[in-house]
């Protein structure tokens, strides 16, 4: 009996591990920035390049940083979701226009709508490296103390928006 149950047990354990492995998303790499102060930058605004914006300007507010680019296909998919989220005016949404041409970025916003309170230009992708950006779009949520509390890699879906972002923002607003 023992002789036959051993391979069976090994098989079941393996199957469970492999099944768990299948449900994981290898693209989701946990960010080391969570609960750490938001990396700083001082970058020109897309619509108004003479003015710069840095995360310290947003202290005391809950804000989102959405990394986007006009060349990014999944940003297009995410865009309507962001527009809807912005309409609710729950938090300040800042766009980080990552390695993009400012002209095509502006066109993109006027064509698809602008959910951002402001977008900053990171043409070289230097701020992107500081934020550990590896796949556009990415979205970070910062609390009032300016700490990163959540990172979302890949396009935000309506479900993500309703189930993760809105409750989190509401929670952070109350802190």
């Amino acid at each position, binding site marked *: 009996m023992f002789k036959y149950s051993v391979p069976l047990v090994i098989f079941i354990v393996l199957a469970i591990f492999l099944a768990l492995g299948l449900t994981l998303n290898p693209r989701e*790499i946990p*960010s*080391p920035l969570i609960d750490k102060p938001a*990396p700083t930058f001082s970058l020109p605004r897309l619509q108004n390049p003479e003015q710069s914006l840095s995360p310290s300007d947003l202290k005391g507010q809950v804000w989102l940083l959405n990394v986007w680019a006009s060349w990014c296909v999944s940003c297009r998919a995410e865009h309507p979701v962001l527009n809807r989220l912005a309409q609710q005016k729950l938090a300040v949404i800042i766009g980080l226009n990552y390695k993009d041409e400012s002209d095509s970025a502006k066109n993109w916003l006027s064509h698809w709508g602008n959910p951002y309170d402001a977008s900053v230009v990171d043409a070289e*992708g230097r701020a992107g*490296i*500081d934020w*550990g950006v*590896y*796949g556009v779009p990415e979205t970070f949520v910062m609390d009032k103390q300016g700490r990163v509390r959540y990172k979302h890699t890949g396009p935000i879906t309506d479900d993500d928006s309703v189930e993760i972002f809105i409750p989190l923002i509401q929670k952070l607003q109350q802190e």
Partner: protein
Amino acid sequence: MRLFFLLIFILAAPNAGAGVEVKQFASTEQEQAYTDLISELRCLVCQNQSIAESNAELAQDLRQQVYTMLQQGQSRQAIIDFMTQRYGDFVLYRPPFKTKTLLLWLAPVVFFMAGLVIVWRLSRKRKRDTVSAQDAERIEKARQLLEQGEDL
């Protein structure tokens, strides 16, 4: 046909050269440090390649970052710290030994030990199963007795 394959190889060749941008180094040690580092940092876009192998834009940027930091005279450890602070341990092909990576580092040893135990136990069992010459004689005798019994 041979020409066709030759053409394919020639056309595919530039891919093999990813990460070999022309870069000037102050010393051969610095160049060595650079090649070592970029082959130990994982590209996060194409996850099974190092930033030395990958042609992804992020890999190019990170190579440039490593290069710049080396030019500034920063140490190897400083560069590794810079990368892990931003991308986490995931960026390292040789993750550090800590509680979270304990299983990762120790699993091979554990599996090896388990293998040894299994081999040891199996070989002991086999020894137990091999019948001694004396036993064989007795078995043969018993068989003969049985056969005689049938005849009766």
